[in-house]
């Protein structure tokens, strides 16, 4: 994929050519655009372009792409607007120290987005989906020295990341239910999926992914916050790409999952709610970018709503509006950035009278706003006509949707013109910077996009033939012919459009008053999902801290008690449950000195328990250990006994050293309850181990291994001491591992002994952080 290679090159080019690298780098998306444009002719006749190769065939993973009308429309929007954005960022971030990195990020993002829309296999779709989340995180947090920026980036990543996981689960459920893991085959197998009992689960999970990505209510909050990003990012992510990914997914799956009651209820409901909330919140804002961001939320809601209705007209309207929105929103965001760049402020209340200073910008903004407002002769008008045609004959609760659509469209009309008209008309005011027209690289993008909205509409037969119809067919899952003309003709949709425009003008004139009202209402509510997000995060942090405190309490005795209880339970429980308890062994026939050694061991244990001072207890433990070593010796295990002697000696020495070092009280001062508890746990462990050993010795003994070692120890390994031969020769690799463990343990203990807090305060801090 070309953009990924470009991302590698970008920093280098910027170092060499400064901001002019933008022009050269724009050639990359342009080449992609032309490449995709070459496929228009074949795709518009209904032939999908596909291809791919095996990735990991043994796992059933394939890397396959698939382009039909919908994918192609998206790919052209992404690469086309991407070209303009790269040019625009060259001028916008002129002189920024990290411009190369920025180009890198934006090209990476472009690559991920293109990959997403042409993906065929589920896996590829998911990988690119996550890639867009990650790259958008980098882009939104580009200005990483600002707290707000970092928060917005993290918020976007978390919300879309959770959605991504939900999507993954949804895709897995789909392939479980149908056995299909490619979109192209799934489209033809919609009936299988719809009749599957897992349909609802799959639908909810996939929508979880799509709704978070496309900022549907109640997940809409991350989108306006993401306006912390540099304007080229907002213009790109929120016009044609990132947020449209969710819409793409919904549209893509419409033939496979649509046409059910759940689909036609959930989507219009959430879409309509988002449309209403977005439009209402938009008028509250005074920042140009924030106003546009909320109208984007509203537009996304509209798109989801239309896709959810699923009728031919609604699908056509969705596709037309998708294209129209990408064009005018991209242009308006760039205009907002341009105004900000040249005048130093984005606050609409401080801007007016810029038309003399920035005539080209003004023209571009007006073109875009006319399209956004749905005025005749513009592309937005075509979309609006289709929307009202789709909603025009409502039945039941869909009348509500029509009402919401009219009001929201009117509000968007007002916002569009207040962004495009208000800063330019009126008396010129003083702005932080003396405003003047921006350089070519800055106004080229909005001008082309604005003009495209007009040209595409005027040349509507061509547009419909090559874009609208193929894309709408792909969404509907059957051939659909779009033939809405740009010339107004008297009908119900036109009347509704006129009503919208009239309401919009009224809203535009009364915008300040509306804004005040909204501010009061929102102030009265005082809580939104944005705050909720913070609360959830805080709660999560507190929960994990609390959990860590409980599990990781820092008290050695608690750890040991828990470990030993677990040991006793894991040994005793299975034995008791499965009736595997050993039978009572007969009293063995020992000689008197063997009894004596056993007695010494028992005395040692009693002495440990009764010892008043800790030192005496440790030494008594040694006595017990030596007695056990003697027993080994007597019963024919000299090696084991030898080692046991040494281990006992060293453990007494080391325990004594540890004790002096820890400066413990010389005597035990546990309360009685604690003593009883510890004694119970200890006895349980002892009994459990004893039972286990008894059981093991009562099993029939398989001596094939002993036979083998005894036979071959001398002949193969030249050693008479079987134990040692096993250690160093037959099981040499085990021993190598063991001595590595010995050494690592030694290192760890050394480190633990050496750790000393520099002063008590920092020590306490470390403990708190841990």
């Amino acid at each position, binding site marked *: 994929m070309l953009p990924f290679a470009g991302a590698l090159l970008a920093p280098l080019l910027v170092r060499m050519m400064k901001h002019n690298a933008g022009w050269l780098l724009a050639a990359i998306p342009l080449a992609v655009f032309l490449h995709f444009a070459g496929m228009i002719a074949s795709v518009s006749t209904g032939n999908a372009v596909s291809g791919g190769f095996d990735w990991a065939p043994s796992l059933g993973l394939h890397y396959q792409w698939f382009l039909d009308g919908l994918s192609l429309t998206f790919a052209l929007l992404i690469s086309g607007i991407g070209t303009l954005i790269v040019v625009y960022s060259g001028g916008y971030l002129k002189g920024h120290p990290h411009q190369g990195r920025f180009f890198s990020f934006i090209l990476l993002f472009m690559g991920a987005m293109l990959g997403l829309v042409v993906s065929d296999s589920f896996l590829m779709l998911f990988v690119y989906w996550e890639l867009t989340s990650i790259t958008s995180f980098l882009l939104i947090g580009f200005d990483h020295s600002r707290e707000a920026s970092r928060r917005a980036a993290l918020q976007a990543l978390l919300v879309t990341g959770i959605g991504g996981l939900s999507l993954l689960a949804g895709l897995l459920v789909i392939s479980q239910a149908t056995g299909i893991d490619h979109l192209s085959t799934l489209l033809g197998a919609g009936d299988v999926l719809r009749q599957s009992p897992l349909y609802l689960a799959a639908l909810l999970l996939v929508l979880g992914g799509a709704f978070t990505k496309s900022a549907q209510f109640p997940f809409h909050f991350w989108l306006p916050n993401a306006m912390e990003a540099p304007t080229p990012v907002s213009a790109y992510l929120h016009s044609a790409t990132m947020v449209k990914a969710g819409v793409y997914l919904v549209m893509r799956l419409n033939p496979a999952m649509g046409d059910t009651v759940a689909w036609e209820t959930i989507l219009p409901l959430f879409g309509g709610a988002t449309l209403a909330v977005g439009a209402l919140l938009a008028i509250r804002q005074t920042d140009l970018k924030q106003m546009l961001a909320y109208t984007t939320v509203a537009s996304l809601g509209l798109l989801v709503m239309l896709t959810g209705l699923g009728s031919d007209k609604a699908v056509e309207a969705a596709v037309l509006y998708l294209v129209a929105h990408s064009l005018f929103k991209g242009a308006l965001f760039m205009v907002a950035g341009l105004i900000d760049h040249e005048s130093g402020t984005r606050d609409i209340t401080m801007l007016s009278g810029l038309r003399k200073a920035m005539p080209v910008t003004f023209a571009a903004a007006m073109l875009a706003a006319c399209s956004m407002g749905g005025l005749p002769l513009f592309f937005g008008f075509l979309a609006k006509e289709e929307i009202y045609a789709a909603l025009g004959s409502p039945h039941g609760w869909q009348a509500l949707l029509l009402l919401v659509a009219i009001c929201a469209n009117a509000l968007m009309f007002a916002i569009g013109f207040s962004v495009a008209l208000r800063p330019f008309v009126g008396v010129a005011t003083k702005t932080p910077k003396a405003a003047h027209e921006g350089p070519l690289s800055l106004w080229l993008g909005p001008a082309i996009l604005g003009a495209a909205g007009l040209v595409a509409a005027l040349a509507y037969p061509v547009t419909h033939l090559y874009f609208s119809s193929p894309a709408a067919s792909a969404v509907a899952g059957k051939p659909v012919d779009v033939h809405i003309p740009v010339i107004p003709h008297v009908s119900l949709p036109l009347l509704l459009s006129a009503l919208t425009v009239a309401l919009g003008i009224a809203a535009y004139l009364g915008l300040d008053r509306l804004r005040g009202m909204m501010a009061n209402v929102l102030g009265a509510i005082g809580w939104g999902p944005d705050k909720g997000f913070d609360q959830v995060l805080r709660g999560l942090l507190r929960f994990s801290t609390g959990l860590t405190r409980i599990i990781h309490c820092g008290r050695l005795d608690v750890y040991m008690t828990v470990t030993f209880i677990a040991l006793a339970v894991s040994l005793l429980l299975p034995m008791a449950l499965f009736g595997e308890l050993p039978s009572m062994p007969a009293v063995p026939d020992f000689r008197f000195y063997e009894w004596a050694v056993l007695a010494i061991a028992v005395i040692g244990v009693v002495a440990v328990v009764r010892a008043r001072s800790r030192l005496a207890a440790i030494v008594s433990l040694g006595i017990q250990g030596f007695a056990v070593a003697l027993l080994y010796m007597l019963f024919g295990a*000299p*090696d084991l006994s*030898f*080692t046991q002697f*040494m*281990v006992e*000696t*060293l453990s007494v*020495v*080391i325990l004594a*050293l*540890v004790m002096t*070092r820890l400066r413990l009280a010389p005597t035990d001062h546990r309360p009685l309850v604690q003593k009883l508890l510890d004694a119970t746990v200890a006895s349980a462990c002892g009994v459990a181990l004893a039972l286990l050993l008894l059981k093991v010795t009562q099993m029939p003994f398989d001596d094939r291994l002993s036979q083998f070692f005894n036979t071959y120890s001398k002949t193969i*390994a*030249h*050693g*008479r*001491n079987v*134990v*040692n*031969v096993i*250690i*160093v*020769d037959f099981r*040499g*690799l085990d*021993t*190598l591992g063991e*001595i*590595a463990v*010995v*050494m690592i*343990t*030694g*290192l760890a*203990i*050394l480190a633990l*002994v*050496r750790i*000393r807090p520099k002063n008590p305060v920092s020590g306490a801090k470390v403990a708190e952080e841990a």
Partner: protein
Amino acid sequence: MQTLIFRTAAPLLTGLMLLFSVFVLLRGHNEPGGGFTGGLIAASAFAILGIAFGVPAVRRALYFHPMAISGFGLFIAALAGLPSLDLGMPFLTGLWAAPSLFGMTVDLSTVMVFDVGVYLVVVGSITSIALALEDREHD
């Protein structure tokens, strides 16, 4: 532990124990003993020396840091497995050679090198733990 008897006896005891530990190590192939046991004996020897004369004295006597000794042991133990690879046999296969020295046959093997590695790892690790615990300077 500054008693005269202990301080006089400690170096002798340490020397004897070290000698004995090497003996145990080398005879391990045919009689009870081996790298683990030998290593533990040597570690006890150093612990005794440390109790008698203090940690710095032991560190001087050892010259190398005990952990470095341990690391070296692990290194040669792993190294002992390599020659067999060269002969197309699995890693760690024992190889034997029996050269004659001064009219006596001495059995040498990669297995012995491996066992010496085990010995050094055990000596180094246990000694470094014991010494670190005995070290009172930082208190």
